[in-house]
């Protein structure tokens, strides 16, 4: 046993920096206990993770989620046969002489199978310039004639540096250095995605083009999404340069303008529509509703709304819009101290909406006021923001192209290297009327709702929220200690007392009241 191992396999112990503890469950914030174990989310359950492969003897610690025992130099330092199993041993190992090495993964690059064949053919026909060495039988006619991604310099000149590529009509799976989609289309061959080209029919609306939103937009652009609609009212500043995507020379430009500049150059196949405005004001809210409903390709509804905003008001606004329209959206957020983030799948009426359970309270498990820091508004790190953006873009692809599991809530705790995932049932007493209406729809006809939201019908795809009954009384029939659950409002609402004054308009009209307010000066 190593000097740092206490034998309990926890990695960190309580009180130490980096120790992560599951937030206390129970209705301490007036919310039901949403933490359940087991599988949550939709899509097929993920395969069991091979826990002993190269990473010590399995993951242990609280809830089996601690740090691997072999973390650090231990595995390498020990060496020898009794050390952790390794994926590949050096050929000098005498034990390995008679065991053939594992097959190498197939690479689809230059030495890939297809290429070699082409090369052989080319050799038979004599030297052919690259780009012409193509088997016409394998390719659609139109493309074999003049591949759309054909380099302009096929005559032998070096490609002009910095030149933008032309638009491509159809995504091709052909493995070529100059096909921007070959690695994406390979997802089909690898059996991950059924039909990758479908991505070109999807449109995604992103609100907030900051540290997370801009990176998500870039990822989706590189993936060849059909259309992106970007909303932001901020400008690029040098203070943003600790995050990804924007460049110093873009400071002063509006964020949407700067991003569309970059994104168009990266992938001209993607359509863009950008709005430099704040969605919370009434007029702009109407515009947001309109763009969700008709902003997609061919004026259809957009397929997904992504929230990458940094404030409560904007999140609530998106929540309302999507509850109102019955639109699936993904929430994302990075904590004020920049060391944790989360993404959340919002299916109106099926999972908790933002008004049912604001994630900061739930995920933190404590008083949101406690995260207040003196000084500037918030810290940020390109790492945490990039990871959160990656999780969000990944969930977007999984949701749109229907592969893997899309969790309801996925957190990232940078200090503890922990990714909690669970789902939250909606609050039947949610303050949003629209949310309650959507909940009713799910209760009435879950099958119909699954169709309406185009959710894959696979095992593990819970038609109802996965939570157990939350009616506290039955859970603990013998309340020996007389424990009572108090409302959560007390410490945050000092003015909510019995002697409160309630407003009385005394039957005055708006005009009267406005006049008397004015006359107070």
């Amino acid at each position: 046993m190593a000097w740092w191992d206490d034998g309990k396999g926890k990695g960190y112990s309580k009180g130490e920096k980096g120790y992560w503890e599951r937030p206390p469950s129970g209705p301490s914030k007036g919310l039901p206990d949403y933490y359940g174990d087991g599988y949550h989310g939709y899509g097929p359950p993920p395969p069991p993770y091979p826990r002993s492969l190269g990473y010590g003897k399995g993951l242990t610690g609280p809830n089996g989620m601690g740090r691997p025992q072999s973390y650090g130099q231990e595995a390498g330092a020990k060496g020898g046969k009794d050390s952790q199993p390794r994926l590949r041993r050096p050929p000098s190992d005498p034990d390995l002489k008679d065991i053939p090495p594992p097959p190498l993964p197939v690479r689809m690059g230059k030495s890939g199978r297809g290429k070699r064949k082409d090369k052989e053919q080319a050799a038979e026909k004599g030297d052919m310039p690259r780009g012409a060495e193509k088997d016409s039988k394998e390719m659609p006619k139109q493309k074999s004639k003049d591949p759309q991604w054909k380099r302009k310099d096929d005559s032998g000149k070096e490609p002009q540096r910095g030149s933008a590529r032309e638009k491509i009509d159809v995504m091709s799976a052909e493995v070529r250095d100059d096909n921007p989609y070959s690695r994406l289309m390979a997802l089909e061959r690898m059996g991950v995605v059924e039909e990758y080209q479908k991505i070109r029919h999807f449109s995604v609306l992103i609100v907030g083009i900051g540290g997370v939103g801009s990176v998500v937009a870039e990822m989706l652009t590189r993936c060849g999404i059909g259309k992106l609609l970007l909303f932001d009212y901020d400008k690029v500043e040098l203070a943003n340069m600790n995050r990804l995507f924007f460049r110093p020379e873009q400071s002063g430009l509006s964020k949407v303008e700067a991003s569309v500049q970059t994104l168009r150059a990266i992938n001209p196949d993607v359509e863009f529509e950008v709005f430099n405005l704040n969605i919370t004001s009434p007029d702009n809210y109407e515009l947001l509703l309109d763009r969700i409903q008709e902003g997609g390709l061919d004026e259809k509804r957009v397929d997904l709304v992504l929230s990458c905003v940094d404030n409560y008001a904007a999140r609530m606004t998106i929540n309302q819009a999507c509850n109102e329209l019955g639109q699936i959206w993904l929430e994302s957020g990075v904590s004020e101290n920049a060391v944790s983030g989360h993404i959340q799948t919002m299916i109106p009426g099926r999972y908790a909406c933002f008004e049912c359970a604001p994630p900061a309270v739930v995920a933190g498990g404590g008083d949101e006021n406690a995260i207040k820091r003196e000084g500037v508004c918030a810290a940020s790190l390109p790492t945490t923001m990039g990871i959160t953006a990656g999780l969000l873009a990944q969930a977007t692809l999984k949701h749109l192209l229907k592969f893997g599991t899309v969790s309801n809530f996925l957190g990232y705790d940078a200090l503890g290297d922990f990714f909690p995932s669970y789902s939250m049932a909606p609050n039947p007493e949610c303050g949003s009327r629209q949310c309650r209406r959507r909940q009713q729809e799910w209760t009435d006809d879950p099958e119909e709702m699954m169709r309406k939201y185009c959710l894959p019908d696979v095992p593990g795809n819970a038609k109802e929220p996965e939570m157990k009954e939350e009616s506290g009384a039955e859970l603990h029939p013998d309340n020996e200690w007389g424990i009572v659950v108090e409302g959560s409002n007390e410490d945050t609402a000092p003015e909510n007392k019995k002697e409160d004054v309630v407003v009385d308009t005394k039957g005055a009209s708006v005009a009267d009241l406005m006049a008397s307010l004015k006359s107070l000066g």
Partner: protein
Amino acid sequence: MMYDDKTKAAVQKIPLLSVKAGPRDGDWVERLKEELAALIQYVQNNKENDHDWFRIESNEDGTRWTGTCWYVHNLLRYEFKLQFEIPAGYPAVPIELELPELDGKTPKMYRGGKICLDIHFAPLWRTNVPKFGIAHALSLALGPWLAAEIPYLIEAGVVTHKGLAEPCQV
């Protein structure tokens, strides 16, 4: 708790609202009446306590509000333009108070001069929908914000007194 007793006492005297409606809802007129009545009461309270510190009025449909607020520091009165819009999702979505003249002068502000309230004000607002209105937002968000930021900005020389030193009536 981050609010001092004086603020708490002032807030407790502002009448609570009851209609949950935003500018897009049919009941908005009722809500607007309540807002106005509460504001009138609050201004009157402030005057009685010799702590009059803002004036606002709205456009016809009550969605855009403009006015001034002031803060007294070392017997000098510093006045700032105040404006805000009622968001579409109001009151579930809190209002965002703007001090356009201070835009870019302090990090505790979003672009456009919106003061940064997410940490302490948003959670409080959330637990008091629909009881809180504009008057509550001013007393719980703008008041403490001015008290925390303005002296600091004056010390830093970012905010200077306009025109002649106008003695304050204490």
